[in-house]
């Protein structure tokens, strides 16, 4: 090393600053040097001995399409990556993948990628050289620019691993605390409740051990926490003793489509239903865990008839759910977006969690998760609270410099927050981006970054599904397609070098990462076999590191619940459900042609937006499939074609997220509408999250019709038996309990 750095500082730069590292200092590999990192950069132009033309070689990497952190294997032939499949060694996805994972290649080869740096000159973005871009960056935010402190901000999607370490490091150097982490599809409220009631923000859920799963809007098969992992566990849950799934939600999600019983409660009243079930269970004395009399007293008011009145769920159904939870114990009760994202979301989720506590599920179907030993590398999970904070900072003119990476707030923020307008008040906006999306095109400096298949990285999934925690390595599957793109880590590193000379030892992010992995403390390397100097190649081969995790038990605790249902008669009688779909997600995949062409799992509509309505509501409005309706909130209105089905509450209208891009390339631009744009700026009371499902709307007939383009000529099997359905009884008689 050219600059003397003490060991502790050195380790901290590599992300290993936490507990445990000091103790293992003597075990650290001494054979690995930074210089060695430089030497081992092998170009793919030099064929490896096993690279035979015509034969595909599979390399391990990590999927970056959502935050779940699934391990991937990419098939590389003649220097091109052709297809990805799951990495069987990853405890997250066990070799499986979802439609978004499979589509990684179309993100990577997308024809609308940004291929050179761009700088705002006058009112337009013009292509510039990297030299020019980097000197602009240096002069605007370098040590001599005078820019420092909280007037610098950075907004990203969920980040983890060494990406999180270098972001932290850069912001620390600048002296800013403004790291906004934003995801529209998140589980923030659930995590807050889990933290307060269980002492673990992201507890491990054992779907396979549950006799019955009661889900209040948690679309765990589609968009909740770790979908591919959940689907694998769901398969185990259905096999053998075959557990039953009850889903309560205003609009049928993919999970709802697979439920044994799907119930629409009146939107925003899910918490009352949970408390009603709890009250009935306690009344009957079915609870497995004693309930303090103070809580039992609060629950008293949630009598069956009162709950039926509030939620619209009939008394017999409530009774049935309560007895199912009892008969088929242990159960698992979870809550997702349509329960979390109301103004009373926290209390609703707490009411749901109460069921787990009184039914004694803690320690059975809900367990403490394995935490990755190094705190700095753990996932920083995105939320919508940070979006609101950013909107406020923009409004108050608090930012001079804003970095954006892996998130698109100009698209996901409700129009009323005026994020797009607010961005113009920021003096210097730097976008690290692959695509010309709404936020990127507003930037002053656009730095084109490598795709997930060209870049290095490490990822620590927020949801750790195993008893040991996992770090997943992302390695490039091929040489960059475009000459003028750079790795996010590389750019960050060059910015860090301006302020912290110690980083000067690393020629690139690759050598930084290699050094970091080779210097992994012993409590992290857990599963990696072989001599310490082989760690790097072992990790490259496997793609994952299983780290030992401390086994904490959950600490169940009841919280004070003040569940109130909001009544609103302000002329907006309907509830807007901005639903999420596995595929386009929050809109980040709208530029992938496959994902546009694949039908939505429930509505089966392709290439556009639609509004889901219940047949009752549709006949009230006099609309049929394909007719346009206007959905109006206090903050704006959108128009979409109607799709009518019985998987939605009559008081709800659901418009899926994902479409309605003003920019974002040829496949996304100008297609459909974005329901997030008309949300009212309502907040979840306890967590400060954006209450995305609380907006009230009115729906009117727009008197316009077009053919609804969707898969399938017929909505029913017309008496033919393609999909046959049998009862569990019959299954037990023939296949028995395994």
């Amino acid at each position, binding site marked *: 090393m050219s600059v003397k750095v003490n060991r502790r500082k050195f380790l901290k730069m590599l992300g290993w600053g936490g507990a445990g590292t000091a103790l293992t200092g003597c075990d650290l590999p001494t054979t690995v040097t930074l210089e060695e990192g430089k030497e081992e950069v092998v170009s793919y132009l030099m064929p490896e001995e096993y690279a035979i033309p015509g034969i595909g070689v599979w390399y391990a990497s990590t999927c970056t399409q959502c935050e779940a952190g699934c391990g991937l294997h990419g098939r590389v032939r003649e220097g091109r990556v*052709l297809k990805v499949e799951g990495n069987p060694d990853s405890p997250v996805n066990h070799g499986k993948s979802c*439609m978004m994972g499979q589509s990684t*290649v179309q993100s990577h080869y997308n024809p609308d990628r940004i291929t050179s740096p761009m700088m705002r000159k006058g009112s337009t973005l013009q292509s510039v050289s990297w030299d020019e871009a980097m000197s602009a960056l240096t002069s605007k935010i370098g040590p001599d620019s005078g820019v420092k402190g909280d007037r610098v901000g950075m907004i990203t999607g969920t980040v983890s691993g060494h990406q999180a370490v270098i972001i932290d490091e850069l912001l620390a150097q600048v002296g800013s605390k403004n790291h906004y982490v934003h995801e529209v599809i998140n589980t923030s409220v659930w995590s807050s409740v889990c933290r307060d009631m269980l002492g673990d923000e992201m507890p491990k859920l054992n779907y396979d051990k549950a006799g019955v799963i009661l889900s209040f809007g948690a679309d765990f098969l589609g968009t909740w926490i770790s979908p591919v992992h959940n689907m694998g566990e769901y398969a185990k849950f259905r096999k053998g003793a075959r557990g039953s799934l009850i889903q309560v939600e205003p609009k049928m999600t993919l999970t709802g489509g697979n439920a044994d019983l799907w119930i629409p409660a009146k939107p925003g009243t899910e918490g009352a239903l949970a408390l009603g079930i709890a009250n009935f269970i306690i009344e009957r004395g079915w609870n497995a865990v004693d309930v303090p009399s103070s809580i039992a007293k609060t629950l008293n008011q949630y009598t069956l008839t009162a709950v039926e009145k509030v939620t619209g769920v009939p008394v017999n159904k409530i009774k049935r759910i309560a007895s199912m939870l009892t008969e088929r114990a242990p159960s698992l009760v979870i809550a997702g977006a349509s329960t979390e994202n109301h103004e009373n979301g926290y209390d609703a989720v707490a009411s749901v969690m109460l069921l787990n506590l009184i039914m004694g599920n803690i320690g059975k179907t809900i367990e403490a998760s394995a935490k990755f030993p190094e705190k700095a590398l753990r996932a920083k999970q995105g939320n919508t609270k940070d979006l609101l904070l950013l909107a406020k900072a923009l409004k108050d003119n608090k930012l001079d410099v804003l970095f954006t990476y892996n998130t698109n707030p100009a698209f996901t923020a409700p129009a009323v927050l005026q994020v797009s307008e607010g961005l113009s008040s920021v003096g210097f906006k730097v976008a690290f981006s692959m695509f010309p999306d709404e936020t990127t095109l507003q930037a002053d400096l656009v730095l084109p970054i490598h795709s997930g298949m060209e870049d290095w990285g490490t990822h620590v999934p927020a949801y750790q599904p195993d008893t040991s925690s996992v770090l997943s390595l992302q390695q490039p599957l091929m040489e960059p397609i475009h000459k003028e793109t750079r790795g996010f880590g590389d750019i960050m590193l060059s910015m860090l070098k301006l302020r912290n000379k110690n980083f000067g030892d690393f020629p690139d992010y690759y050598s930084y990462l290699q050094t970091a992995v080779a210097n992994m403390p012993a409590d992290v390397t857990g599963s990696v076999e072989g001599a310490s100097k082989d760690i790097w190649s072992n990790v490259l081969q496997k793609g994952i590191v299983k780290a030992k995790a401390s086994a904490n038990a959950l600490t169940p605790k009841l919280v004070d619940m003040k569940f109130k249902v909001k009544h609103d008669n302000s002329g907006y009688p309907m509830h807007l459900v901005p639903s999420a779909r596995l595929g386009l997600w929050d809109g980040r995949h709208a530029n992938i042609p*496959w994902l546009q062409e694949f039908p939505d*799992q429930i509505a089966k509509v392709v290439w556009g937006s639609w509004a889901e309505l219940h047949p009752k509501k549709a006949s009230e409005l006099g609309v049929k499939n394909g007719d346009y309706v206007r959905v109006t909130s206090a903050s704006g209105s959108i128009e979409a074609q109607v799709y009518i089905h019985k998987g939605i509450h009559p008081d709800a209208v659901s418009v899926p997220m994902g479409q309605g891009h003003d920019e974002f390339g040829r496949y996304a631009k100008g297609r459909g509408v974005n329901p997030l744009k008309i949300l009212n700026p309502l907040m979840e009371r306890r967590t400060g999250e954006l209450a995305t499902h609380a907006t009230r709307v009115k729906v009117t007939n727009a008197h316009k019709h077009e053919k609804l383009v969707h898969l399938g000529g017929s909505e029913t099997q017309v008496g033919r038996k393609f999909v046959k359905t049998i009862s569990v009884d019959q299954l037990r008689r023939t296949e028995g309990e395994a």
Partner: protein
Amino acid sequence: MSFKNILENFSYYRRDAEDGGHHEYDHRFGMTIDLDICTGCNSCSTACYAENNLAVVGKERFEKGQAMHWMRVERYWDNIEGDYAEEGAKFLPMLCQNCGAATCEPVCPVAATYHTPDGLNAQVYNRCIGSRYCSNNCPFRVRYFNFWSYYEDSWPEPLNMQLNPDLSVRDKGVMEKCTFCIQRIRTAKDKAQREERVMADGDVVTACAQACPTGAIVFGDTMDPDSRVSKLWEKHQVHRGPFLQKKDKTNEEIRGYRIFDELNVDPSILYLERVRDTEV
């Protein structure tokens, strides 16, 4: 096949379809799809697009029914008496059933679609003249015709770099369909031959079966009695051959069934019935 040949080998040619008819099979690839754990997530379909160079046709052509989804997931709403779809939706992954007695084969005027010794309905692209008789005759609607030269706008550069070089990109005027990932079968056969062994169960995994997050799709050789797929067929008392199978079941309640079995086309895909807990 001369008349003399038929007379001389009459006992061979008059074999029943259960015994392979006039085919001399090396393998008979088949599949099982468990509709109880299929979640309808579309993973299989995406994997198929990635593996088989399927063209994206766009909204207008999708509307006309020209989408090229070899593996599509259908969704049905049925028997909804009340106000709500309380039993959820019904999902059905539908792909070419690679029938043993396929209705598409005999109608092809140029024998572009024929039965391979592996039990597949193969489609010879450069023999196909685009009469579309086969798709007309397919009860499953799983044959897809190239009405246009999709390659012209489906893979704008550099999207074309993703195309799988193990199989061709089809041009206008050609019929195409699920091949049970024939390129993967070929690769596995070659590999087994190089290693001087017979193909084992699990050597070939189709793209859809590989991706399926719940493992609802099982693929294998139904002639290999030890394969996972054979065992499932046996367990569910469905066997190869075109005749109505119901009578063969010792217990009519056993889940396995084949779609359109009544047409006697001998589909190679065994579906397992969806289960719903009616006690809930």
